[in-house]
């Protein structure tokens, strides 16, 4: 993974709803906050498009500024740590689902929805994600029989 999407933006402090709005969107995509307002995502066409539009939304706000870059790492090896951060982030979500699946009478409908939201930000095909998928399938089969 050597090309990344870098998203840098500034939104005025007030009204705070707009800051929260932008923050939620970035979190929802599974972006990682590198520094104050520099976010990073692995390059993929879907995220690229969404960030493009988010940037133009921010620019339309009074005093809003946003920049989107495709960037390549110059020092090799920087990506290893980053990839791990993305995997850890989505694995936290997957672990939570797995824990709930191990309880008695888990709510499979709700948990499958949680799985879908988590897998939308699984950029590196986490092993744990496969496990959640298999577990949900298995429990569904059991429920049917």
């Amino acid at each position, binding site marked *: 993974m050597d090309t990344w999407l870098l998203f840098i933006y500034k939104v005025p402090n007030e009204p705070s709803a707009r800051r929260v709005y932008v923050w*939620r*969107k970035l979190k*929802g*995509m599974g972006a990682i906050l590198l520094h104050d307002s520099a976010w990073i995502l692995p390059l993929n*066409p*879907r995220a690229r*498009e*969404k960030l*493009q*539009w*988010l*940037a*133009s*939304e921010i*620019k*339309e706000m009074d005093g809003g500024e946003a920049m989107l870059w495709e960037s390549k790492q110059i020092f090799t090896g920087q990506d290893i740590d980053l990839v791990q951060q993305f995997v850890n982030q989505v694995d936290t979500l997957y672990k939570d689902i797995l824990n709930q699946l191990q309880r008695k009478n888990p709510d499979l409908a709700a948990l499958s929805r949680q799985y879908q939201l988590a897998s939308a930000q699984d950029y590196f095909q986490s092993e744990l994600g496969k496990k959640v998928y298999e577990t949900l399938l298995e429990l569904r089969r059991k429920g049917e029989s």
Partner: protein
Amino acid sequence: MKWVTWEFIGVDRMGCAWLILRFIDKQAEFIFIPAGSTSIPENCEPFDIPGVRLSHRGEHSTFHTILNEYHLDDPLLHRIANIIDEADVAQNVILERIAEGLDFICRGMRLISANDQIAVERGQLIYEALYAQLKSEAPQ
């Protein structure tokens, strides 16, 4: 009329092209410029390019904007606009279960089409099918 947008169309632009051909301009011709380009050829109506009249507005897709600009009030078209809003704009609250599937199919359609003209033609069938299915489910 000539309509211009960025190349490599996805769910929103494919839907817009259908909407334009079906309800606004039956003789519409589409021109595609490189993604990111802001030099709009003369006498063309640009759409789904940041900053132009027919583009995203807030959390809404360009399809949504075109509906409003051309005063199309068919409720089924507004339903399609909601679906595209959820597919194309990073929304956190998801109500339309077909949104993500539609997004995937439109992206895939572009992948198997040699160019954007062909993708627009094939996209007509996708949106016509979506419209027909929504119609069949709508209360009479």
